[in-house]
């Protein structure tokens, strides 16, 4: 029965993807992309990946729609229709599709317990997590402890992307007059004149922030962790920016502070690793943080996840503020 449900959602995913690409209006395309991501998250959930579904929910349905809307407001929403499509990319795509299709017949079936991927280190992680780390969520254990090195790299990538956005948008075009954000703000009130939306929205913001904190700090026991919590918290700030105006959200979350907090988050992660080295362990080996290694793991994961959450939140908030407060040229 679940298999049938999976089939239907997967087919809907395919339909949504094709509709996304076919739409000539970029606004409609990003709408379809939102639907696509909701369906994708349902699929992840059906495939037993609750943590991934939570992250996809926070990122796909909330943050990415907001960012696409912010970008489209600055770039325009119509796509030029190309009449002539050269044969070369189509040929490449056709060959690729054919090759992949043939290759699928050698893939293990969905859910095959004998698949090679289940034979390697995964059983060891599942077996040892209760003993070594003693937290129920194995995904968090692997993310923050067993494979902490990998996650550190990802955090640095996110941080770098945030810096990249800020530096790209720090240039101003020369010799062109801008529509200042004040002039725009006077005209553009967005949803701010809707009292109902503001009242209900303000009701949602604190709950969303609270929920983000639960996901952050309770992520060892339930689906969650720094990445999803960061995206949820950023979504709360974005909601505030949409309801009250982006200038206010930039005032509440100034870029300077956000940048420092992002640096702090990444540094916190690294310095936990360095402290472990100073105490005589390996880099990111939390066992040495406390006399009892399991407690050491607990504190290590707590601190590292906090660093991740801080960096993700601040980077996403910075990007949102940079997009939403960009004057129109």
């Amino acid at each position: 029965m679940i298999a049938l449900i999976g089939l239907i959602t997967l087919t809907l995913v395919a339909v949504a993807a094709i509709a996304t690409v076919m739409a000539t209006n970029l606004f409609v395309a990003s709408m379809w992309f939102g639907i696509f991501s909701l369906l994708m998250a349902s699929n992840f959930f059906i495939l037993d990946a609750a943590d991934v579904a939570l992250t996809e929910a926070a990122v796909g349905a909330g943050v990415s729609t907001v960012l696409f809307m912010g970008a489209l407001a600055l770039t325009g929403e119509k796509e030029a229709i190309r009449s002539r499509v050269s044969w070369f990319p189509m040929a490449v795509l056709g060959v690729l599709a054919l090759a992949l299709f043939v290759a699928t017949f050698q893939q293990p079936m969905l859910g095959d317990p004998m698949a090679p991927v289940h034979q390697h280190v995964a059983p060891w992680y599942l077996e040892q997590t209760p003993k070594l780390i003693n937290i129920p969520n194995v995904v968090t254990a692997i993310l923050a402890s067993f494979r902490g090195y990998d996650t550190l790299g990802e955090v640095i990538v996110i941080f770098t992307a945030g810096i990249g956005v800020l530096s790209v948008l720090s240039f101003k075009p020369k010799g062109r007059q801008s529509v200042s954000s004040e002039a725009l703000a006077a005209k553009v009130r967005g949803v701010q004149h809707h009292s109902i939306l503001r009242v209900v929205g303000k009701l949602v913001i604190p709950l969303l922030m609270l929920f983000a904190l639960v996901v952050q700090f309770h992520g060892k026991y339930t689906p969650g962790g720094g990445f999803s919590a960061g995206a949820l918290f950023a979504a709360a700030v974005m909601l505030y920016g949409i309801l009250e105006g982006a200038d206010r959200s930039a005032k509440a979350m100034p870029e300077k502070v956000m940048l420092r907090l992002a640096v702090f988050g990444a540094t916190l992660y690294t310095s936990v690793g360095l402290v472990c080295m100073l105490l005589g362990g390996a880099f990111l080996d939390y066992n040495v943080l406390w006399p009892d290694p399991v407690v050491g793991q607990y504190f290590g994961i707590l601190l590292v996840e906090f660093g991740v959450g801080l960096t993700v939140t601040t980077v996403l908030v910075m990007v949102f503020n940079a997009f939403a407060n960009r004057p129109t040229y």
Partner: protein
Amino acid sequence: MMGTIFDWLSGLLLVAGGFFVLVGGVGVIRMPDLYTRIHAASVTETLGTMLILTGLMLHSGWELATFKLLAILVFLLFTGPVSSYALGNTALLGGLKPELGEQDPPKEGRES
């Protein structure tokens, strides 16, 4: 004994919720213009949601999950109608006219 009553009740609520969700879905396809479609979609967002989530609450019994379901229900009841309102309002301000029937409705009462 109580357990079975709750099971029956929860099954009934779930089926009823599924029915109303389905009715709303049909309405979204069949209705002639945007405003009536919003109307149909609202059925799924309030009545269908309420019935399904209440059914799940009865199914789960007295647990933490019940409170989570209650929270979900409250959020959906707040946000669903509000976003419907916002959509209708935006469409109206954006210049989309509701498709009204003729001034004297035809005797058969068929739409458009």
